[in-house]
């Protein structure tokens, strides 16, 4: 295993973490599509920054992209406020127009430099180790590592510093405003972070993977927990996991690294969607099945209680009578009786069913509930 592999994996882990941090808040604030909008709309900012510096890895590019990202947010907000176009349409319009402007600028002025749309959208992680940071003649490792590392630290620092403010602004923006915490400023800072992360990551992984890493792991984590701090932690773990497994999948399949990572994000979500502890489809299915039996057992004991010590009890308390009275199919009725017997709620006396004390107890409780 060469340094090449290590470096790519290290960069992808850093990118994953840097994306998952602000991504968690995007998902919680129902603004996941802003990651899509911003990661496309930074294109003109990057292009202008590139014209100014002639260097694809200059910090000015990150700044230009961040400005373009904030411009997107501000434009969407402005259009929404005019009340002429709804917010979703405004988002779609602004980012696609900015992206189109970026493409036009590239086509007009930069046709022959290393800055094409493929690179922005798709990125190429395999090239990351070739672009190295040299300082005083010493090789300090791939440049992308530093760019994304710094932005990642910035995100982490911002979230640590303003954790409770962000939490408040996310879950109760009105309360946040009344307490004087300026949710608007927090909103724009968060959007600035999203833009900076998107720009820092675009060269390495491309816009699409940025969206996948910002939305996917937090959405998966959202299925697993109710707690913000845990959600952030799970998001980071899931993002890193997707990055590493995606890298090896790409290595084995000889396919696009970014594509494989995005696919792994999807696989993670699909798995958790099915088996997550409280939210998963499987658990929900089991819960429904359990509830169905539990409800049927309650019906049975209530039925028996109603007819206990009455003249018609001989008629009503037979297993084959349940079919008529509770409209249960024969196999289902037998299943209910078997479960109730095994839980010692009823006992069978000859052909009749009789409540045990605990069964009577359950029936009384259930009646109170009703």
């Amino acid at each position, binding site marked *: 295993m060469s340094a090449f592999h290590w470096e790519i994996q290290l960069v992808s882990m850093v990118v994953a973490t840097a994306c998952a941090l602000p991504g968690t808040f995007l998902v919680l604030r129902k603004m996941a*599509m802003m990651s899509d909008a911003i990661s496309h709309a930074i294109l003109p900012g990057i292009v202008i920054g590139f014209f100014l510096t002639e260097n694809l890895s200059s910090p000015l590019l990150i700044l230009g992209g961040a400005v373009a990202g904030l411009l997107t947010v501000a434009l969407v907000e402005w259009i929404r406020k005019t009340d002429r176009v709804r917010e979703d349409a405004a*988002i779609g319009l602004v980012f*696609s127009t900015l992206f*189109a402007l970026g493409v036009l600028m590239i*086509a007009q002025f930069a*046709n022959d430099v290393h800055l094409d749309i493929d690179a922005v959208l798709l990125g190429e992680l395999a090239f990351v180790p070739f672009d190295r940071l040299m300082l005083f003649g010493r090789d300090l490792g791939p440049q992308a590592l530093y760019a994304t590392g710094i932005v990642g630290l910035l995100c982490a620092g911002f979230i640590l510093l303003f954790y409770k403010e962000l939490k408040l602004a996310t879950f109760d923006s009105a309360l946040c405003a009344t307490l004087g915490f300026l949710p608007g400023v927090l909103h724009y800072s968060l959007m600035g972070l999203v833009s900076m992360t998107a720009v820092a990551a675009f060269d390495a992984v491309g816009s699409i993977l940025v969206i996948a890493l910002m939305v*996917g792991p937090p959405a998966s984590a959202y299925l697993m927990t109710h707690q913000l701090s845990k959600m952030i932690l799970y998001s980071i773990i899931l993002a890193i996991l997707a990055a590493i497994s995606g890298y090896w999948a790409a290595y084995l399949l000889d396919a696009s690294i*970014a594509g494989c990572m995005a696919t792994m994000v999807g696989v993670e979500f699909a798995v958790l969607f099915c088996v997550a502890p409280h939210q998963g489809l499987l658990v929900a299915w089991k819960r429904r099945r359990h509830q169905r039996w539990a409800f049927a057992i309650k019906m049975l004991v209530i039925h028996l209680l109603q007819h206990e010590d009455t003249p018609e009890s001989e008629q009503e308390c037979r297993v084959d009578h349940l079919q008529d009275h509770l409209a249960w199919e024969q196999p289902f009725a037998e299943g209910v009786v078997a479960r109730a017997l095994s839980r010692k709620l009823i006992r069978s006396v000859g052909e009749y069913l009789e409540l045990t004390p605990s069964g009577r107890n359950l029936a009384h409780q259930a009646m109170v509930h009703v």
Partner: protein
Amino acid sequence: MIEQLLGDYTLRTVTLGAAILGAVSGVLSTFVVLRQQSLLGDAVSHAALPGIGLAFLITGSKASLILMIGAGIAGWLGTALVLLITHSSRVKYDSALGLVLSVFFGIGLVLLTFIQKSSLPNQAGLDSFLFGQAASLVMEDVLTMTVVGGLALVVILLFWKEFKLLAFDPDFARSLVLPVRWLDVGCTTLLVVVIVIGLQTVGVVLMSAMIIAPAAAARQWTDHFGMMTLISMIIGMLCGTGGSILSATTSNLPTGPIIVVCTSGVVVMSILAAPHRGILWNKIRQILQNRRLRAEAVLLDLFDLAKQHETPEYPHMEEVLRVIYPQSGSLLRQLQGLQSKGLVMRNEHGAWALTPDGVIRCHQLIKERTP
């Protein structure tokens, strides 16, 4: 230029294709914008990519109809997944969209790289679907677009009032025992179809503008649904035509982006300058209204001041009025304006008085304003 347009095969094909695409997406965008599905369109166009790859892998053909079918199925599947995720988990709509969009696109990338590295023949040009390559359109593609797009339009016409009801009041539609869910599926399917026929011309990212912008612009010009659809179609068609001609006559202007920039330009213009809803007109109306109210206030003040005296036409010096408006620099202008309308007059001492017409106007105003 028209000669050039008719003479040049590529230009003719591209322009025709863009015009048809603009018209069809213009019509569909009305529904998209009114039903707030703008971002779904973006997700669908990204989600279509793996379908294109798979269709090519399975059939080995690059015929646009086959690729369209693949893209359509994938886009439709993406939409269904978004619905499944939002219905059966607590993940919200926006996250589901972002997830489906990026993951499907990722899968598509994997397939495309797989195809590129395989030794399948005839694979070049598949990635034109990513960013759109209008110049690669041939007459056959345009024909496919026309037939598929035409079918979509026919379906819309057939179910016109049902779709209209769906867009405005789905609950009412349900109460009429219309199959709302199927209408919804049908309308979304049409959206997928239109996106798919546009991918080759403008590409994945820019297609989302094509299904938002025309209707967003048209909405500003009218409050009538049929009118809005018509305007939207015309805007889409004109921008498609204009954009492709612009791109052909200028060097280094790719067709897709220039069409998108044109349409967005129309949106901005409409938001600013459309009658009734335009922001500029609103501003002007507001200014005129303010001016009228200020003038009326001065008139009524003169009337109030004169009440202290025996006649309502009793004159007052400008300085007296200035006491009421210490800050206003425009008092003299208001008075002169009123004078030119014959409502006040200036006597030989320079004092201002109401004319008989002014008194009548004052009575009218007071009557109008007392509820």
